[in-house]
């Protein structure tokens, strides 16, 4: 009798366990296989500026704070502690103190301390003895005067002026903490982090392999035994590999609307999400040389743009019209539609073009005497295709443009030399935050301010919004700045593209960020229901 009862209890327990597991209890084990679109230049996040690096490398590291990996929209409200258990600002907002988690170890067994945080910022600011080969985001941390430590587990960032959004920059996938005891050169080839996964190998053109960090300081994580990124540079092959189950997930935000439809046709079980990636397609106009040193010509050009046509032709409707900041609802700081409509070039296309033609006629151009220019762009499809549409649209206002495809490696050098009249460019934003977007792309003297637009009054407004702590108040200031930038034809934004990611239904806990393509790849609690 007792045996029967025991067996019944065992069966009931097994059934209950099974039901619980089916209800979504995470399972340990398995290798997540993702295809990678290209061989990334290295796995040292601080030295690179592409999410081809963040995607495989973010799991190697931790930040002081990080965006909640399961809230698609990154905002100040979704920042959670990571290596810092807590943080606080001084009363004058000029010091930001982080209390660090104790007992964290680097992958090589060395203890993590506040010195590592100091070393990281010293490296970023070029104050350390070792230097990065390149340091693409050093300007983001210009406001930090000094980093001081108080014992092994407290660190303070001292600021020149209050900057509420600094915490947003620290939460980005672009800002991991690096170890003091490992050189930048080694971090490029054999990275050491505190993250949920350890580096195993990186073979150019072949694969990147990460293995579970058994001593990860977040107990019970990660669930996966490892992640394997197979480098498949041909997208057609990659899609077929996903459909055939050779990989569990596509490279994040790499699928177009048409490709997703194709995938769903071949594998109805695939989970696919499409959303913005905070990459804008924009125009750079050389305002220093004629004829574009004349603001009227620049205005006429901005009035000729049919933004919806760009989105429909190139992305089959999967895109958004907006200003510098990513438009809502996914974007936190983008101008609302009613405000956008008030900006010249964002309203009725036909009326705007009439106005543009009138300007051009007044300047002496016409159908028999068009303005002849070259539209320069990087010789890559994502740049070339919108440039071709642009050339077609410019014809409507007596601008006869010719495509000037520039070899990819020469693109930024050409722009830096001012050796172009009109260029088409793509700008990605690591975080959806006005400080990063404004200072990086529009501040006088910034390296990425390709058009050399310089408006001191507006720059004062950049500073003003930057110190504002009230989000709604800051938002209105940001909208005013963004509107002014578009009216000044500083760098006309053509569109914000949307693209997608697909994964198999057994991949659980996968969240794709909706307003940044750079921040959501920690993968510590992703698991496989196999």
């Amino acid at each position, binding site marked *: 009798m007792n045996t029967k009862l025991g067996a019944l209890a065992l069966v009931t327990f097994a059934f209950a366990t099974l039901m619980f597991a089916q209800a979504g209890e995470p399972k340990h084990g398995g290798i997540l296989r993702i295809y990678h679109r290209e061989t990334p230049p290295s796995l040292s996040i601080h030295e*690179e500026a592409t999410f081809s690096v963040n995607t495989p490398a973010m799991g190697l590291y931790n930040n002081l704070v990080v965006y909640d990996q399961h809230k698609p929209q990154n905002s100040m409200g979704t920042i959670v502690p990571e290596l810092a258990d807590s943080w606080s600002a001084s009363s004058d907002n000029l010091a930001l103190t982080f209390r660090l988690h104790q007992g964290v170890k680097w992958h090589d067994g060395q203890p993590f301390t506040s010195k590592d945080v100091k070393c990281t910022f010293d490296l970023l600011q070029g104050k350390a003895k070792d230097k990065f080969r*390149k340091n693409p985001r050093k300007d983001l941390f210009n406001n930090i005067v000094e980093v001081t430590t108080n014992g092994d587990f407290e660190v303070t960032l001292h600021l020149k002026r209050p900057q509420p959004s600094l915490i947003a920059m620290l939460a980005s996938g672009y800002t991991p903490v690096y170890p003091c005891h490992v050189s930048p050169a080694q971090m*490029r080839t054999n990275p050491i982090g505190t993250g949920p996964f350890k580096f195993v190998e990186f073979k150019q053109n*072949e694969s990147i392999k990460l293995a579970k960090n058994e001593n990860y300081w977040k107990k019970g994580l990660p669930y996966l035994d490892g992640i394997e990124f197979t480098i498949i540079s041909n997208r057609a092959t990659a899609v077929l590999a996903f459909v055939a189950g050779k990989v569990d997930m596509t490279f994040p935000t790499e699928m177009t609307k048409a490709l997703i439809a194709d995938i769903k046709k071949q594998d109805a079980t695939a989970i696919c999400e499409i959303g913005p990636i905070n990459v804008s397609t924009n125009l750079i106009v050389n305002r220093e040389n004629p004829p574009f040193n004349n603001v009227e010509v620049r205005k006429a050009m901005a009035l000729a743009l049919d933004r919806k046509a760009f989105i429909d032709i190139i992305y089959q409707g999967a895109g958004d019209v907006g200003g510098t900041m990513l438009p809502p609802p996914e974007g936190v700081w983008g101008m609302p539609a009613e405000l956008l409509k008030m900006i010249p070039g964002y309203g009725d296309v036909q009326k705007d073009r009439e106005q543009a033609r009138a300007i051009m006629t007044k300047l002496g151009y016409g159908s028999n005497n068009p303005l002849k220019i070259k539209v320069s762009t990087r010789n890559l499809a994502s740049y070339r295709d919108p440039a071709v549409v642009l050339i077609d649209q410019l014809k409507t206002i007596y601008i006869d443009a010719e495509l000037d495809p520039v070899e990819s490696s020469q693109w*930024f*050098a050409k722009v830096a030399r001012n050796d172009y009249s009109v260029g088409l460019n793509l700008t990605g934003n690591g975080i959806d935050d006005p400080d990063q977007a404004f200072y990086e792309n529009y501040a006088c003297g910034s390296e990425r301010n390709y058009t050399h637009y310089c408006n001191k009054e507006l720059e004062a407004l950049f500073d003003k919004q930057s110190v504002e702590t009230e989000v709604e108040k800051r938002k209105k200031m940001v909208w005013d700045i963004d509107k002014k930038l578009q009216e000044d034809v500083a760098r006309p934004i053509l569109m914000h593209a949307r693209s997608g990611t697909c994964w198999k239904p057994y991949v659980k806990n996968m969240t794709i960020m909706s307003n940044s393509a750079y921040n959501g790849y920690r993968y510590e609690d992703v698991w496989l229901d196999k």
Partner: protein
Amino acid sequence: MTLERCGALWGRAAYFRREARVGTYIIRRFFLMLLTLFGISLLIFTMLRLVPGNIADIVFNAAGMIDVAEKAKLEKELGLDRPIPVQYVEWVSGLARGDLGYSYVSEKPAIDEILPRIPITAKLAGLALLFAVTFGVPLGVISAVKQNTTLDYVLRVISLSGLSLPSFWLGLLILMAFVAYFGAIPIYTNPPKGFWNTLWLFSIPAMAVGFRSSALIMRLTRSSMLEVLRQDYIRTARAKGAPARTVNYRHALRNALLPVVTVIGIEAAFLMGGLIVTETVFNIPGVARFLVEAIRWRDYPIVQNLVMFVAVVAVSINFLIDLLYAVLDPRIRYAS
């Protein structure tokens, strides 16, 4: 000394003279091969530096920025600021010592990056060539022997389609068919384990590549055979009652093979470094795909050494073909 003895000595001397001539032929070819390689090394080195941009440009371009000071520092670190002749001499002397330098991108020794990729491409090229010769030569003979029959027409259409179909398109069609009908995809994601696994992984892309090569070989074998089959000695062989098989394969094919051997050699050299599209479609991490990637990054140590490797393979194959000519065709032997 008898007349017979004199004749024998004269014959022996003539034999040694012939042998000496063949030896000279080989030595001359060998030195020509070295000269060619020297020319190639100069050419690739110069051309690479004529291409706009270097690794420092690419590195900063990828970050969307130009920092002149940091760029100059990187160029100095990699030795790119030194005069080009100095860089050339350093490279060539390194080659002589077996030191291929370091990859600018991976920062690992170039030899460690290049060596593992050679067997991968060699397997693919070897299988593709095997496929091409196995099908190309016999079908070319059959097509010639059965000239203007239905079989000949069918084979000619197949060979024409082999030459016309771009291999990337054929490759993609094969992959799509595999996914649609078998739910599997024969692409390289991890190094294959064991003989059968390797054969399975490489045979499909080898067939995609080999189809084009076999078509080329088949057409050349056919035309060469047709020419030979019209020769007097073939008519004589037929007239003396030799069986058709002997006439076709022993008398005709051997003489028709010379141009075919040349093409097989050229194809073998091409397959070692020219399978960019096939390696990309089937995701094979071989020499050609790696070379393209290295060119994209202006990774000079990788590009220079890989191109030299491909050149050595091509020149060596040509050298072997020259030797094979001498074996196959006595006229070449005696003329030299």
